[in-house]
């Protein structure tokens, strides 16, 4: 004979146990979860010294949101005669697939760690060339196994010599 209500009480015992367990959630704006070193965030890291303006990233982008303007002029990177005038990423339409980072043959473009980006105007979501030049250079290890090999966790800033597969 089945006692009606026994199953519900059994279920309530499960919930009762949770009264004595620590909470799993975090209070978001005050406490933030740690992100993985491979996280694909929106603080893109771009090393102008490494970039040759080849536009591989722009071709790989499924949405075509990377804008690159170059003009012929000798540049510090060996074998390259182009200087970059404009390098813009419209993160308002970016879906953070990291295909641009995968496509970059010179390790000039890296994903960044931040995930909080809200603005009042769409134009503010475009990362301009100056912002990329002056922004913090904390690349993520997404598609950059050389950073994982040295045990980099995405916490300190790296210069253009450290971030690539080879030093300039």
């Amino acid at each position, binding site marked *: 004979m089945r006692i009606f209500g026994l199953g519900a009480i059994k279920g309530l015992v499960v919930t009762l146990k949770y009264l004595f367990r620590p909470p799993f959630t975090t209070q978001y704006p005050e406490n933030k979860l740690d992100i993985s070193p491979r996280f694909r965030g929106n603080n893109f890291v771009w090393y102008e010294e490494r970039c040759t303006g080849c536009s591989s990233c722009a071709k790989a982008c499924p949405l075509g949101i990377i804008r690159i303007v170059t003009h012929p002029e000798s540049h510090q990177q060996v074998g390259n005669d182009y200087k970059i005038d404009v390098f813009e990423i419209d993160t308002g339409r970016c879906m953070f697939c990291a*295909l641009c980072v995968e496509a970059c043959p010179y390790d000039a473009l890296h994903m960044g760690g931040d995930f909080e980006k809200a603005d009042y105007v769409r134009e503010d979501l475009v990362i301009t060339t100056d912002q990329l030049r002056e922004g913090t250079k904390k690349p993520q290890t997404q598609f950059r196994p050389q950073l994982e090999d040295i045990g980099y966790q995405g916490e300190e800033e790296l210069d253009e010599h450290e971030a690539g597969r080879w030093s300039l």
Partner: protein
Amino acid sequence: MSQGNESMNESEKNIGGTESVLLNLGPQHPSTHGVFRLRTLLDGEEVVDVEPILGYLHRGSSKLAEERSYTQIITLTDRLDYLAGMSNNLAYISALEKLTDVEPPERARYLRVIMVELMRIASHLMGIGFLINDLGAWITPLMHMFREREKILDLFEMVCGARITFSYMRLGGVSHDLPEGFEKSIAEFLDDFEKKIEEYENLLLGNEIILSRMVGVAPLAGERAINCSITGPNLRASGVDWDLRKQDPYEIYDQLDFSVPLGENGDNWDRMVVRIEEMKESVHILRQCMDKLPQGPYRADTDFFVRPPEGEAYGMVEAPKGELGFYLVSDGSIAPYRMGIRSPSFINLTVLRELCVGWKLADIIVNFGTLDINVGEVDR
């Protein structure tokens, strides 16, 4: 004549001259799992007719694919069934690998199966969680299941850097090898998750309200399910032993030891229990994969802008919601000439009407919940 029509005629007889009421459930309804509309005709509280109205989330994935390169399309497939992105990736890549004759290395095959099985657990958790939520258990069971899904998403974030839109699979392998410490994390998760499944069973499977709402409600006969092309857990709940992992083994499923849980009556209860049993099997598969995981390369050497030879290919996998197939036609150029998607959620919807007609309005939500559709995949 279908079962649905018979019960409709019967209920029409019972009306006795009363006027039926047209009720729109959705498109903005919390129980429709997305932007989805059910046009229901009610006689009192009894359902006379149900018509699903689709297309609110149509993004034209097939058409968008025609102007993207083969690698870029992977990002589109993430967004079909957004609760099971890895499975969509794998289905698309299996079609592309048939088209290009690329063989992935052994380790890549294992990594794919690990990710897809984790994804199956996450998807079933959401399926059951929202179903119980719709039943009136409000948020508690759902939050328990969100917690476990969160741990799976953390594992995915470790591996590929994203939590929902993974774009993890690549032609001839996967995009990343496992990070340091993944083996430990997944072992911890699996140990913990087995206990959590027990907890779910204690919480849900004995509850009298859930039993009375689900046992024997909206049964679907196995033969009828086959005729309606139902796939996935919904088909197996009706007692039909059909799982692509067994019937047409892809990747490394033929080397793994697992069973396919089956239901008996195909009622709401069976459809839920089959999903819980499948999660247990997935844990079993994951343990085997982590034990057997070979060393070696994780990706074959392929071009970013691959140009497959002219031809066509159809690749299918057992996604959490059923058989997911991608049909690719290549004209030898950088982008496919045509991409067709056989999405399980869309085809599983064909039985919705006959499951609901003759039952009460409150049962619609439960019947709809047990089908476990995802509107991103229905509308594509």
